[in-house]
């Protein structure tokens, strides 16, 4: 049973998406309007369980290889699961499940929820496919599935701002996926293979100057998805205009899948660890621009979007350092970013759900009305700012130390200063939303519903647990770091000595 787990993890949400229209028709006949939502939750939790089931086989250092149709690579398509993509798959499935639970109430007032469920499952299927495939063209196809679903979800509310943001995201995102396709075409023309392991083996024999253009095309394409500066411009508009549950999904799942694709291709396929310093520098620029732009925002969701850009800078810095500790720190921060960023977007959604705005100048004193949301937001804000003893501190500290050990203390210093700025703009947000004078029109605001609070509480608990017991997080990312740096092991496992 465990042998088919990789394909099950992709096909469960994919087939779930195709089943939704049928379930929607049947549920309307029996007046069970929310059957689609519950079905989505069930599918995504099952997907999470399937991914977790692969842990026993992979965390010990093993690599699971599933050959589609029994065709061996490099002729057939394979799914290859090692410590790295298992970690990412866990993040994607976990975030999607929590978003689906949160959406049960958050999206209740919307129409066409069956469509929302279809798109949510398609985005998850795309992200899972990107994560688990061992074929570069397959990765592109799943990238498109994830991206097209995301464009539609950003525009889901069909207001002028969400439609505009969705169109902008679609145009820029399509530009990015075109770059990826062009990069893959150049590689195929050069090597004649699409299997990542086969490409990794053969690219080692190609002159470095020949891979400059395909590598730059692929980095740019994936860079757009993770909103790496200077490819970030679409992100604040899309995050602000999308429903908060979708902002959380974009920040926690699709961005994580995009970063995975980038490091899998650059480090594992090209073996280009020399590009690491470039990543670290782009990471620094990303964290500085994100933090300085977040400092001046009036809208909470836009502030969170710039904050998300800034946090991706930390991940790029850690991974770019190229040392074992740096990669561990970067991947640990990737995990933590998915946790606290999703938590913060869900808190923003709870405020929007009860108050109807996320404009900081129209809020105030909500700590009295929404004490649980306030507490959860404070936990998320302190965690993202790297305040001990929360999870953000453990991963940021690992990155700082890795920077110093790699002889790049200036990088660590800049990262520390940006953490202070992060705390500064989150203190502004806490002050504007939960403290101070409460406008009269907000006096009767109620706490968010329990169904929305449940996933937020779970994420807040994870922020605390991974901060107080950071070794748990390190144990989770150590196999991922080992897998990323074990190119020959991956090639041997997938190609089986071909």
């Amino acid at each position, binding site marked *: 049973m465990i042998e088919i787990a990789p394909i099950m993890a992709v096909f469960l949400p994919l087939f779930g998406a195709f089943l939704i229209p049928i379930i929607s028709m049947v549920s309307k006949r029996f007046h069970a309007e929310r059957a689609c939502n519950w079905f989505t939750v069930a599918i995504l939790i099952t997907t999470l369980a399937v991914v977790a089931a692969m842990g026993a086989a992979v965390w010990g250092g093993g690599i699971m290889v599933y050959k589609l149709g029994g065709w061996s690579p490099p002729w057939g398509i394979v799914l290859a699961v090692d410590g790295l993509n298992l970690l990412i798959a866990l993040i994607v499935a976990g975030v999607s499940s929590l978003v689906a639970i949160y959406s049960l109430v958050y999206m209740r007032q919307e129409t066409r929820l069956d469509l929302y469920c279809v798109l949510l499952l398609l985005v998850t299927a795309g992200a899972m496919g990107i994560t688990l495939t061992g074929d570069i063209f397959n990765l592109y196809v799943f990238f498109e599935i994830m991206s097209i679903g995301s464009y539609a979800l950003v525009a889901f509310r069909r207001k002028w701002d969400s439609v505009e943001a969705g169109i902008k995201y679609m145009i820029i995102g399509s530009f*990015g996926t075109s770059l990826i396709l062009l990069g893959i075409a150049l590689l195929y023309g050069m090597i004649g293979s699409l299997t990542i392991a086969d490409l990794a083996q053969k690219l080692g024999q190609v002159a470095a100057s020949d891979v*400059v253009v395909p590598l730059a095309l692929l980095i740019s394409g994936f860079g757009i998805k993770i909103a790496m500066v200077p*490819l970030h411009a679409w992100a604040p508009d899309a995050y602000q205009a999308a429903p908060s549950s979708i902002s959380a999904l974009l920040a926690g799942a699709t961005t994580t899948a995009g970063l995975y694709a980038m490091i899998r291709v650059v480090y594992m396929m090209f073996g280009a660890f020399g590009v690491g310093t470039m990543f670290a520098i782009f990471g620094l620029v990303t964290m500085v621009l994100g933090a300085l732009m977040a400092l001046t*925002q009036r809208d909470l969701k836009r502030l969170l979007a710039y904050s998300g850009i800034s946090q991706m800078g930390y991940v790029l810095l850690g991974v770019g350092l190229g040392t074992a500790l740096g990669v561990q720190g970067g991947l640990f921060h990737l995990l933590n970013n998915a946790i606290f960023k999703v938590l913060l977007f869900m808190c923003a959604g709870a405020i929007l759900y009860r108050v109807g705005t996320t404009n900081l100048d129209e809020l*105030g004193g909500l700590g009295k009305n929404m004490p649980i949301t306030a507490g959860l937001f404070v936990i998320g804000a302190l965690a993202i700012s790297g305040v001990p003893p929360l999870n953000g501190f453990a991963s940021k500290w690992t990155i700082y130390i890795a920077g110093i050990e790699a002889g790049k203390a200036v990088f660590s210093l800049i990262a520390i200063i940006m953490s202070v700025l992060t705390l500064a703009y989150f203190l502004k947000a806490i002050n504007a939303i939960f403290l101070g004078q409460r406008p009269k029109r907000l006096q009767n605001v109620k706490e968010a519903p329990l169904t929305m609070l449940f996933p937020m509480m779970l994420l807040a608990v994870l922020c605390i647990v991974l901060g107080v017991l950071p070794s748990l997080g390190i144990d989770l990312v150590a196999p991922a770091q080992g897998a990323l740096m074990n190119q020959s092991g991956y090639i041997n496992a997938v190609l089986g000595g071909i």
Partner: protein
Amino acid sequence: MEFGPGFWGPIVATVVMLLGAGFAYLMLLGGRRLTKERPSIAKRSTYGCGEEVKPEEVIADSEQFYSPVRRVFKPFYRYVQPWHSGKLNTYLLWVVIGFIVILVAVALVLR
């Protein structure tokens, strides 16, 4: 966790921080007992420069909240902020410039 010189014991640190927070809260409660925070209308109008300000109007403008920081990074905000205007052609220019920068950077690294 050990990170070079010094040590970080997350559980010990958490306990110490919680104790510190508890102590600070007790001090706050004690302070509230000793002082009564009830300024008269005369005092309010004096410190408010003679103006009667409604409580809900006393909210700091969120964009100007860190105006000193904005002054320090004035060149950044002058040149970079207008490039986040929401205009699609500007965003596409970001992407094109980004691709060229990445292409040059990769070429320099792999030369």
